[in-house]
């Protein structure tokens, strides 16, 4: 076998070097596509039904073996059980047997292709990929019809790189995971089950590898690069040496990340940044603490409103907020007031049928129109403020008047609490999100009337560049380092600091290893990111030099085009962390 590189999609980071082993080599040509005598059709249907029943039993058993920590996995097997019982698949196949007098295997294949055709026009990638689930279930039924069972053709004696056309969750539950170094499959995409399983078990995996079955044989020596997404078949000695080294480095890196994650995020020249987390449920606090988060910089409060048919009561909210505040104390928790609308609608909002909800009655606008709902939440936050280090911020502020209206209501609530003799922290900090271009331009006035700013870059980028990131036709314009965005953030940070208030950045930009040095160069006070991004970003900050960040920022500010900025930033940052950055992907990866 000659040396060969096969490209795929990395879904679970890591490197492995070992021998290939195919779980099962599919041989479609042996599928019996034949005609049966009209009298035999009924027994063919019965054969199909008993195969379906056997597969349902296998799946149920596999389902019962799923360990509790793999809840996602159990859910996938559940959906496979539903597919195995789905009238669209099984009844359709049975109908085809009777109408065409064909074998159960052929009828099943036709039923699957009919579903695949119906799904092929669906725009949603995730749902389109679910046809794969139908194929996997049908494949299992088909193998059963042909007399096979289980997923491995023979037991694994030593640790191998497991290869397959595709792996179903039920298949993977039968796998001896201690004997598997990594996974490679020819089917599957970013959301495939192999990825979910592999990530939860910390096994490297590459899926969607084109021509995997044609080019790899059992026993071939392969390198699986699940950092960048390819497989080297029959590697040369240099590659083996390089990858042995890279594998060692990556594993050491993962360990180091975890060990260091509680250290402060301080640059080598002593600039300290607070690193806090974005979360939306109280249960996520454990993950924040485990990954070295110093607090919660953005608590999205919508969940309580969207998860029940009726609005939450003040006491329900108070209980949720005070629990969160006391667990996180002395770390701070910033509650963002209700940000419903656009992609998170209350039932009454959906009934308004706004033509353009992203520019509609959402967030603070909705709250100022529904004062009872708003004041109930403000009361709950204020009451929770005695249980920890609590702050509050208003989302989507577009002008001074809106901010003042919100603050008037907050004051009314304070007076009501005084009258009711209920305790609250009178000095609880009050801030705002800066996520609209209008708020950027009047940041100097806004800074005089609040205690802190939090720049919501995800929305600021969309509103500034006039694009919907979820729209695939324009998503290429989602450019975090567009000169307008860099200048906007800088303008807000400077305005805040002139008034002596703190400013943080919450949004994916702050979790991007290439963008964080630019934010540091602006002297931001805090970043708020997803808990899982905290250890890696803290480590990068601790290896960064503030003076170099400032120099890079100045160069970026003098550069006119995004492509050029991305190039400059990539080259500069990559030179600083050539080893680390091989372990990351970036928002600015898809430029020029």
């Amino acid at each position, binding site marked *: 076998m000659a040396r060969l590189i096969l490209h795929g999609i990395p879904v679970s980071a890591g490197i492995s070097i070992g021998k290939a082993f195919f779980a099962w080599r599919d041989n479609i040509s042996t599928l019996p596509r034949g005609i049966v005598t009209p009298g035999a059709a009924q027994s063919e249907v019965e054969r199909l039904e008993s195969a379906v029943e056997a597969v349902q039993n296998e799946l149920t058993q596999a389902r019962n073996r799923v360990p509790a920590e793999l809840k996602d996995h159990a*859910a*996938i097997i*559940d*959906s496979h059980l*539903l*597919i195995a019982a*789905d*009238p*669209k*698949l099984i009844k359709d196949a049975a109908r085809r047997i009777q109408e065409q007098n064909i074998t159960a295997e052929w009828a099943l294949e036709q039923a699957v292709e009919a*579903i695949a055709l*119906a*799904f092929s026009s*669906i*725009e*949603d990638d*995730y*749902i389109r990929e*679910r046809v794969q*689930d*139908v194929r996997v279930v049908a494949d299992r039924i088909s193998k059963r019809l042909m007399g096979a069972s289980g997923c491995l053709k023979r037991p694994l004696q030593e640790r191998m790189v497991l290869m397959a056309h595709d792996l179903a969750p039920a298949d993977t539950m039968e796998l001896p995971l201690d004997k598997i170094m990594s996974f490679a499959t020819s089917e599957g995409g970013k959301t495939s089950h192999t990825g979910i399983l592999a990530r939860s078990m910390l096994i490297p995996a590459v899926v969607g590898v084109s021509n995997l079955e044609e080019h790899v044989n059992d026993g071939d020596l392969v390198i699986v690069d699940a950092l960048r997404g390819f497989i080297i078949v029959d590697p040369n000695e240099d590659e083996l040496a390089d990858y042995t080294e890279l594998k060692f480095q990556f594993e050491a890196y993962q360990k180091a990340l975890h060990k260091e994650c509680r250290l402060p995020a301080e640059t080598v020249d002593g600039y300290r940044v607070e690193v806090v987390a974005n979360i939306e449920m109280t249960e996520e606090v454990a993950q924040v603490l485990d990954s070295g988060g110093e607090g919660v910089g953005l608590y999205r409060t919508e969940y309580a409103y*969207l*998860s*029940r*048919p*009726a*609005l939450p009561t003040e006491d329900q909210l108070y209980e949720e907020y005070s629990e969160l505040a006391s667990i996180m104390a002395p770390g701070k928790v910033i509650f963002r007031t209700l940000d419903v609308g656009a*992609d*998170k*609608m*209350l*039932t*009454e909002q*959906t009934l308004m049928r706004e033509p353009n*909800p992203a520019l509609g009655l959402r967030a603070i606008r909705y709250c100022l129109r529904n004062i009872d709902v708003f004041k109930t939440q403000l009361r709950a936050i204020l009451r929770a403020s005695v249980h920890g280090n609590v702050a509050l911020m208003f989302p989507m502020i577009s002008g001074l008047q809106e901010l003042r209206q919100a603050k008037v209501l907050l004051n009314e609530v304070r007076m009501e609490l005084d009258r009711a003799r209920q305790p609250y922290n009178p000095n609880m900090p009050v801030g705002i999100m800066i996520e609209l271009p209008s708020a950027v331009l009047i940041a100097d006035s806004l800074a005089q009337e609040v205690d802190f700013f939090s720049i919501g870059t995800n929305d600021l980028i969309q509103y500034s560049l006039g694009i919907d990131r979820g729209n695939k036709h324009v998503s290429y314009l989602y450019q975090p380092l567009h000169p307008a965005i860099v200048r906007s953030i800088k303008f807000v940070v400077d305005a805040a600091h002139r008034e002596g208030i703190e400013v943080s950045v919450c949004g994916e930009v702050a979790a991007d290893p290439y963008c964080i040095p630019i934010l540091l160069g602006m002297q931001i006070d805090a970043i708020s990111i997803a808990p899982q991004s905290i250890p890696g970003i803290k480590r990068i900050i601790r290896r960064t030099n503030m003076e170099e960040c400032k120099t890079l920022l100045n160069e970026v500010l003098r550069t006119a085009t995004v492509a050029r900025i991305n190039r400059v930033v990539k080259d500069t940052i990559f030179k600083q962390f050539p080893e680390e950055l091989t372990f990351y992907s970036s928002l600015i990866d898809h430029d020029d």
Partner: protein
Amino acid sequence: MQEEIREIEDGLCLTVRVANDQGLHARPAARLVKEASRFTSRIVLASGDAEVDAKSILDILSLAAAKGTALELRASGPDAREALRHLAATFANRFREDT
């Protein structure tokens, strides 16, 4: 804020809204099938011209209903009213298991 159940030609109907972030993806669809299968009534989900069987996961997935989509739940049979109430709550709870 709950919508009213309305009478239609051959049963009852109710408008629901997909509230969870992912839309009617595999897990929510699975949950919906399980809940719908508890009732004997014929239950369909309608979106625009498309009308699908609420007890078929493949049918539900084929709607590719994203977050925010309004769907009409129609039920006909002895337990139609209960079924609609129960399924509306399932939608409102964003298909969470703990309800």
